[in-house]
């Protein structure tokens, strides 16, 4: 099932994923943290789509001469649909997150994760 390109794709996406996770773990700026999550998500998309792609098959679009659903001729459309959905969800989450960061910044004047101390026993 794996083609020769797949390990390379896996490695690259893993590297990106690792960098992104590192960003999540060490960056103090909330904005950058959310950005890092987006990058990590993208790395996963790359991993999935890249590993799923088989050279030589047609794109699963009806216009390109494909008349029926047959995985033998075309690329499996399901992962692409999945990734599209996931991208949409990712955008929604990022948007919500960033809007909250903005609100938070307006209320407190900072957006550093290590300074978030509103909650806990003493408050």
């Amino acid at each position, binding site marked *: 099932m794996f083609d020769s390109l797949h390990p390379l794709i896996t490695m690259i996406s893993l590297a990106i994923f690792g960098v992104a996770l590192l960003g999540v773990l060490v960056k103090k700026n909330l904005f950058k*943290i*959310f950005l890092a*999550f987006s990058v990590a998500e993208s790395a996963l998309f790359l991993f*999935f789509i890249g590993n799923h792609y088989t050279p030589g098959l047609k794109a699963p679009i009806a216009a390109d001469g494909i008349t029926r659903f047959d995985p033998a001729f075309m690329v499996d459309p399901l992962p692409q649909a999945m990734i599209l959905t996931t991208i949409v969800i990712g955008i929604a989450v990022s948007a919500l997150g960033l809007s909250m960061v903005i*609100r938070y910044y307006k209320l407190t004047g900072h957006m550093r994760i290590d300074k*978030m101390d*509103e*909650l806990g026993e003493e408050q």
Partner: protein
Amino acid sequence: MSLLLFILLPLLAIFLMPFYRAYLHYVSTVLSMALFGLALTCKAALPLVERVAVDLPLAITFELSSVSWLLVTLFTLSMSLFSLYHLRFSSNKALFVGTNMLLVGVIGLVLSRDIFNIYIFFEISSISAYLLTSLNQDAKAYGGAIRYMIIGAFASLFFLLSIMLIYLTIGVLDLQMIAQRFNLIDEQVQYLILLSLFIALGIKTELFGLNFWVPDVYQASRSAVSGLFSAMLSKSYLFLLFHLAYLLHVSTSQMAFLTLVAALTFAVAEFSALKSRETKRIFAFSTLGQIGLIALALSYGDTALTEAALFLIIVHALAKLMLFLALDLLERRLGSTKSEIFARFESLFLMAVFTVGALSLLGIPPFAGFAAKLSLLKGLAGLEAYGAMALILTVSLIEAAYLFRLLSGFRQGEQKMVVTLSPLERLIFGVMMFALLLLGLMPQPLLALCQEAAQAMLGGYHAAL
């Protein structure tokens, strides 16, 4: 009648929001009660399986088994009570959207039989939870919501990773088919998948090691919303985690690991609550403890224990929702949720509510918690799991220490504020107290349902062992 109604109706209500902007609380109430009614009528037709769209490999399947029926009924009931409680407040857009989306999310989580679908509902419930956490729109609320979001995003990465690995290896998304083909996967990848799932769902289920963020989120949210989280959100993930575990036939040692984690969840959370002075955090710790207890029961994969766990899920959801709603009432009147507030109000009714709630949590007869704890202990005794029994009984004493510390606040304090409850509030709390008492005195009917559900939930798990 279609199972999709449970998902589509609330979503529809959200889309049509502009048409009844001023009456959202009424709409929410009517809707959730209608869904509750709908759930009740489904009982006769169990189990219901429904396919949407194309043929099997690509189809989206929903299944209402007796266990998901139990949970859907619980969720719609909780939502009804929550909406009824909010009837006297003005219409609130964010609350309406958040709670209804949360309802969609949790119902979807228990109904879906397709792992990608589950991911979608995972995200829907997460987004609505973030939204609900930030409801108060102050620094505290946003701080909590952002914290929640970062952790949630982390969890969803792992969930996504596991889905991708599954699809890449066996090319299916339907849970039943995954279960059938799971053995075909390379053992190491299998382990990676299970571990990713555990991290993702463990964060959401609030298990030990992955739950350190929970008290903050509960503290940031409004009390009533925390009640909803406690009653619905954590319960749906609890179901999901163990549903997957049974379905994928995880090994005995992996189950034992879950047992250990659950026991730790229970013990550490209850211990942590002991000296806390913030009621919301105390209740959050207590929720964690009960989740640990339920997970402990489920991790044995035994019919009697699963039955007890399901019963406990229902009882705990009711009791916690009641406590959080009552706390919300106090928070609105007194402007604080510190444990000192128990010394600052005067209301026999609310005192009774807190007392009944606390006694039920503790599993003290004649309230429902006792029936749950008893069947739990009976189940453990049947498996000769004496260590777990000893742990439960010992840690319960710690639980008693902090809950009774709260209750003893009633008789301190000089200037007390008289808190009066509206007839509707009295009705809601009265019904919940009565339900807890009734379930304590006559647990058999519900236990029978739970038994049926437990068999459905375990499926062929036992056969594999």
